[in-house]
């Protein structure tokens, strides 16, 4: 079975631009979470979606938004990019809701803002 997939793998954007990152969960998983991992740090929680509804939001500005589609895939959007948004963005899926034991992570999207 395919694991969590994310696209694109790498992305280079300029300050002020907008970016969309995509995530496909493991088949049958209904919950998707997004994390930001700055170089040298642990991942930080951004959003969690379950059954197409936002179930949790981390301490990130309104420039960050996300949505989940009927097929449970998800997009993370970041507007007005800043240099500090450069990071590895991880998507994780779980089989049921936010309280699933295990989250399965994708390989991440490396975003570089210049």
């Amino acid at each position: 079975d395919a694991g969590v997939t994310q696209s694109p793998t790498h992305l280079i954007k300029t300050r002020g631009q907008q970016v969309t990152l995509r995530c496909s969960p493991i088949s049958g998983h209904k919950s998707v979470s997004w994390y930001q991992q700055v170089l040298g740090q642990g991942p930080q929680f951004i959003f969690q979606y379950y059954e197409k509804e936002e179930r949790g939001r981390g301490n990130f500005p309104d420039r960050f938004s996300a949505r989940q589609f009927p097929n449970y895939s998800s997009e993370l959007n970041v507007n007005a990019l800043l240099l500090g948004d450069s990071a590895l963005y991880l998507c994780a899926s779980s089989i049921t809701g936010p309280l699933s034991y295990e989250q399965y992570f994708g390989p991440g999207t490396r975003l570089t803002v210049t």
Partner: protein
Amino acid sequence: AQTVTQSQPEMSVQEAETVTLSCTYDTSESDYYLFWYKQPPSRQMILVIRQEAYKQQNATENRFSVNFQKAAKSFSLKISDSQLGDAAMYFCAYRSGPYGGSQGNLIFGKGTKLSVKP
């Protein structure tokens, strides 16, 4: 708010030997879960081991085991018979229980980079 602290930025172990990675956490919750994740250079985060706070018995998964000290809020990972493939970043993570505040999202420490020498 819950916090997770990993005080060892880097550790090194000889192949076939044992190494222990440290993790402490702070919480006022009584029901929670603790995890160790491994992130190899390929970046894919993989769950190594999980511990439920209500369980007194320490979790074990093959060569990986934990020492969970609830009163001390300590959760260390022991890797026995270390292998070259164990080289990676290791993250300790916390998650609230069903009635807790973090609603299922993981709170990570900064990680420990483990090197394995042949």
